[in-house]
């Protein structure tokens, strides 16, 4: 399985994602510039966190006009897996691949800390190695992570089990319905504010994020034994 990591000007979790996939999971990952126009040969796309275009105008609002984005939209439409983390989630909402928007945290400040999450849907290609309703801990690091969508959209997300992660003990940013991550209706595009790539090594104190990647890799014939 070959995974594309899209790099925009200002992306800064690209290396972390690469290391999680390559060094920890032993998977094949490759950086793809925002200027590229093709995703041929890739089996999954990941959009990393960071500050694409300095968060100017609105988080993700400029990145979505990049050359690569129409290709990401086509890739998603073909049913292939797309994962957006943090700024990647923001970009996916801006690009219309996921509903709703990420607003400024209700405390108005950037927050970097570990949050408790409930895995609400463990039947996605990214979460099928978690137990249903499993409580996990993942770090967040964002200033604009307060999920917002109109009432009917929220109702639909809930009805169709598209809420994948929900903040458990406390809601750190004011997200509606405590939403931390959602998936599209067809179940192949996941956006999440918490950073699973920061929680894949015991040395750094947390491995709860590892299964997001191993689940995806396993679904594509990846051998779990390959994990270093």
């Amino acid at each position, binding site marked *: 399985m070959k995974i594309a990591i899209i790099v925009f*000007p200002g992306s800064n*979790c690209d290396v972390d994602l690469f290391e999680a996939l390559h060094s920890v999971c032993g998977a094949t990952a490759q950086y793809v510039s925002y200027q590229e126009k093709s995703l041929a040969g890739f089996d999954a796309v990941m959009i990393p*966190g960071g*500050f694409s275009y*300095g968060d100017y105008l609105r988080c993700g609002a400029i990145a979505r006009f990049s050359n690569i984005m129409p290709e990401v939209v086509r890739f998603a439409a073909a049913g292939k897996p797309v994962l957006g983390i943090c700024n990647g989630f923001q970009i996916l909402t801006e690009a219309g691949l996921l509903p709703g928007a990420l607003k400024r945290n209700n405390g108005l400040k950037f*927050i970097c800390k570990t949050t408790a999450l409930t895995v609400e849907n463990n039947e996605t290609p990214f979460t099928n190695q978690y137990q249903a309703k499993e409580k996990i801990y993942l770090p967040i690091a964002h200033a604009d992570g307060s999920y917002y969508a109109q009432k009917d959209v929220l109702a639909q997300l809930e009805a169709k089990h598209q809420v994948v992660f929900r903040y458990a003990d406390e809601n750190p940013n004011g997200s509606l319905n405590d939403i931390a991550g959602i998936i599209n209706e067809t179940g192949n595009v996941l956006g999440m504010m918490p950073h699973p790539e920061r929680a894949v090594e015991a*040395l750094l104190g947390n491995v709860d994020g590892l299964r997001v990647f191993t689940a995806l890799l396993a679904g594509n014939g990846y051998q779990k034994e390959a994990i270093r």
Partner: protein
Amino acid sequence: MTVELEMSPQEIKEKKPYLEWGLSEKEYDYIAQKLLGRLPNYTETGLFAVMWSEHCSYKKSKAVLREFPNKNARVLQGPGEGAGIIDIGDGQGIVFKAESHNHPSAVEPYAGAATGVGGIIRDIFSMGARPIALLDSLHFGEIKDSRTKYLINEVVAGIGGYGNCMGIPTVGGEMTFDECYADNPLVNAMCVGIIEQSEMQKGQAKGVGNAVMYVGAKTGRDGIHGATFASTDFSDEKETQRSAVQVGDPFMEKLLLEACLLLTSKHQDWLVGIQDMGAAGLVSSSCEMASKAGSGMTLDLDNVPQREDGMSAYEIMLSESQERMLLCVRAGFEKQVQELFHNFGLDAVVIGRVTEEKNYLLRHRGEIVTDIPVTSLTDDVLEESSREKKPARMLAQSRKPAWHPGKLVVAATLRKMLQQPTIASKKSFTETYDSQVRTNTVVGPGSDAAVIRIRQTNKAIAITTDGNGRLVYLDPFVGGKIAVLEAATNLVASGATPLAITDCLNFGDPNDPEVYWELHQAVKGMAAACRQLDTPVISGNVSLYNESNGTAIYPTPMVGMVGLLTDVHQYLTPTVKQVGSQLFLVGETGNDFAGTEIQKMLTGQLSGSLNDFSLTTTVQRLAKLLQANQAGLLESAHDLSEGGLAVALVEMTLHSQLGLSLAVPFAGEQLFSETPGRFVVSVAPQKVAAFKQLLGTDAVLLGEVTAKRELALKYQDGTAVLDLEEAKKLWEEAIPCLMKSKD
């Protein structure tokens, strides 16, 4: 657009505008008569004023700075370049430096702090290094008025705003509060980078005909005379200083960082030298690059990318617009460099050439606006000898009997102390920094030191910043020793061997003989500790004139120290790990109450003299502890600092569900004594024998870790029990509560 008419050389001589720019009459006369043999024009006078400012020339502090050791077998680059470099083996080096941005942060706290971070990051990547960590040493007034709260909030936001966007984790630092910093907060930022030794760069412009290229953001009128501004003190009358603060754009710097590192790592054959345009912008970077290589240089200022119309040569040269770098590029490779930067959406323009003549020649709008010897700006600075005098307050103090807190109600005192802002949790601030990006942060903010793993190796580095103005105020020499020692103990308590330091010397007006004496004595003390620890000073900066309306801050040298763990898994944190582990106090406890948190809390002021101590004994103790850790004997370790043993014990339990049952062999008040160079360590039961054998009489058994969430203390004259959940709550809520309170 009107262009202000510049004064003629004759008018400058008569009206003396240079006095306002920080140049003295003596210096002006020396420049005109001895260096140039003619009257300098407006632009030239401006160049001399900034280059001869203390900020750029260190003319007042140079003599003192020479006392620092700056070499040993590990030092690959000492002071004089963008940052220092130390060897960590495997062909890699660690690059680091700290810089103060006190004056800008006092005037415009968000932008001042943000550009302080931006500037120190550029210093690191101008060496060819990838920045991997940021730390900040911050000192504010007491959290009691809205102005101080505003300064704190904005400085913290500025630090996070810049570092978070750059994707460089802010992993540690310190924050203290004392009224002397109310109008003159200290904002010292440190950046650490990693470099392949084969990719080390220098800020040099050599090779006649090679191109001088300007890359990065465009030049505007911001920050003109920032360096001079930082070399005078504040007064209420000078409200116009706001224009001297620059505005940062971290996104621009992220692009500049990636472009520069691509150039330094993949295209070294194109590049001769690279230097950050920091303080005094284009003039300092260009003339320093020429001076270091013994070259001359011509610059055509019309080619400098500008974002405002009608800028004069003076303004272009002195602008401190951010996110700019100056390169010296081998002739014939200008196009390639241009293309590389254009790919990142950045300007890259040839603005001059290296010349054979040793002069510094600037052209603007068809005229030669400057023609002076390069070295006149960089090397001919009149060093100023300063008068020194032991402060009257010290003489008065030494005649008084030492202050002693007397008998204390230990539990109540400790509860109150945990709420002192200098001791209380800083989580509400550090949580706004991304401390994890790059996924190498093994230990982040809130520990003795940050620990950062080095990828593709089994190594890690530990980093800390420390400065205790209170102690240096009472005794600059002993306080200076303690500042360095405190940093070293923080590293040792994290499992790392101290390697080298950087510093920011934050002092008052050096023209005051008492201030200069403080500077000199503090440096002597720091140098003595550095020699004993074999931790040379490889970079640093000096921030003088930290005064507001005639009152100086406490003399506050900040020490940024880097240490090495050859095995990352040997890192230590203060947190106790398991029931039954034994707690030992390492190092003797004396009656050290002068300048302590307990003195400040109980009396509201500082008084007394510091007890001197043996560096040799203390450093031997550090070595033994490192040896104990390398032998796998330690479970956790914590160095004792503000609040003494009492506070350290609570801190060791804060992030656990455990308690402590201990008996200390001294009086209750000594729990708050701050004798330097001490530790508490926890040792698993099966390792106790080996530990005792190694440490001998240096370690005293205090008791053990328990499952009961309380600190149960027996001391010579009493007992105390502290509910640790309650203590944690007090410690956590103190600062958020103060920040929310109404004035």
